[in-house]
């Protein structure tokens, strides 16, 4: 059983602040909540932030909810939309500092693909490094992050849920781009893209070759799904950050084109 905490409108719709529900994944727990509290509650849930035992998670993420976990349903906060009438330029609250991105800052999601990191056998260092480059070099705002094992179906599912959410412009994966048997991030990515942008991979490999001939073995894919750009980065901190650096000049334009698609 999972302890589910409800706040604000979610609490009112459910008529309770706390409820015990069964389910192994976040999706299952929220499904049980929707069955109990109705379709309106389910709809609201899709706009909520979900926090499990203190960590923000994605609905589609598989780990949850071991027995006794606490899952909180947090509706969007009131902030920022303070004064729509006055048009005070209060819309974006990037935590990053001005870094010369486009006027509507790039909203980025960083997904680390790694069996070991997903199993918490080691700490994910690449994800945070990619976030730092995205913030400082692209002026992007990191609006979400994820951690997933090297399982193509899970990777594809995460990409779909983010790209189709309308909340992000750019999804950066890292890991799973080599030649080992479980390195299948490019395949999981291509499977969900509307169109590929092979030039981005070529640019990353070209930049990598200046550092090491091994860059020729990297298989990163990239392209567009809906209005989001998806780019695979390698799994090492160095490889991932250098590859993203190589794209700094072209990604803002790619994002702009995807938004108008």
């Amino acid at each position, binding site marked *: 059983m999972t302890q589910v905490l409800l706040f604000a409108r979610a609490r009112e719709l459910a008529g309770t602040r706390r409820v015990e529900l069964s389910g192994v994944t976040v999706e299952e727990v929220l499904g049980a909540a929707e069955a109990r509290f109705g379709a309106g509650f389910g709809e609201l849930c899709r706009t909520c932030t979900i926090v499990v035992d203190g960590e923000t998670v994605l609905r589609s993420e598989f780990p949850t909810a071991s027995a006794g976990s606490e899952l909180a349903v947090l*509706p*969007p*906060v009131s902030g920022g*939309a303070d004064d729509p009438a006055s048009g005070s330029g209060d819309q974006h609250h990037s*935590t990053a*500092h001005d870094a010369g991105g486009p006027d509507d800052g790039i909203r980025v999601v960083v997904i680390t693909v790694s069996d070991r990191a997903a199993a918490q056998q080691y700490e994910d260092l690449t994800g945070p490094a990619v976030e730092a480059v995205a913030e400082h070099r692209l002026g992007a705002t990191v609006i979400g992050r994820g951690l997933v094992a090297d399982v193509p179906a899970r990777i594809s599912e995460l990409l779909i849920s983010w790209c189709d959410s309308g909340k992000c412009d750019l999804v950066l994966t890292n890991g799973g781009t080599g030649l080992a048997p479980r390195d299948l991030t490019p395949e999981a990515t291509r499977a969900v893209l509307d169109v590929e942008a092979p030039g981005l991979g070529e640019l990353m490999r070209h930049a990598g070759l200046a550092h090491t001939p091994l860059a020729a073995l990297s298989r990163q894919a990239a392209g567009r799904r809906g209005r989001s750009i998806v780019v695979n980065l390698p799994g090492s901190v160095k490889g991932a950050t250098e590859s993203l650096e190589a794209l700094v000049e072209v990604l803002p334009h790619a994002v702009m084109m995807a938004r108008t698609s």
Partner: protein
Amino acid sequence: MGDTDPAVFEGAPVTSDGGSVMGAGAPVVVAGLQRSTISVADLVDRVRRDDCGAVVVFEGTTRSPNQGHDVIALDYEAWEDRTPAQLERIVAEVVTAHGLRAGAVVHRVGVVPVGATAVVVVAVAPHRDAAFAGARELIDRIKAEAWIWKKELRPDGEIWVDGCA
């Protein structure tokens, strides 16, 4: 958060004496939720420092009308177990980013009548540029990120106010 004294917050209302650290060492971080009226003067007294020449205070007050609707009061709800730690982390990050010597935020929870102060942020720095910039980022981040929800109590009913509203 490393340079802050956990005794200062712990989610305790700031009107309680948290034993603030006023030495020349670590920056002071104050963060909390409060059910009762916020005393701006008391809060400023807790964070002002002899080695700083600038104190910027921002008060967010409840407004009526809002978006064309009369409002009687606002009802604020927070995740009382976790929002204080979240506020504390935001203040600590802004303090570090702007080189502040102290930063504070106190947000009301519960029903706040129109015209009252719902949130106060304070940024304390040696010079005014950092204090203004720090105060601005504090209030912007708290409004955008903190797990605090507000419901408008109107003459004709109640309505939750979202960021997307």
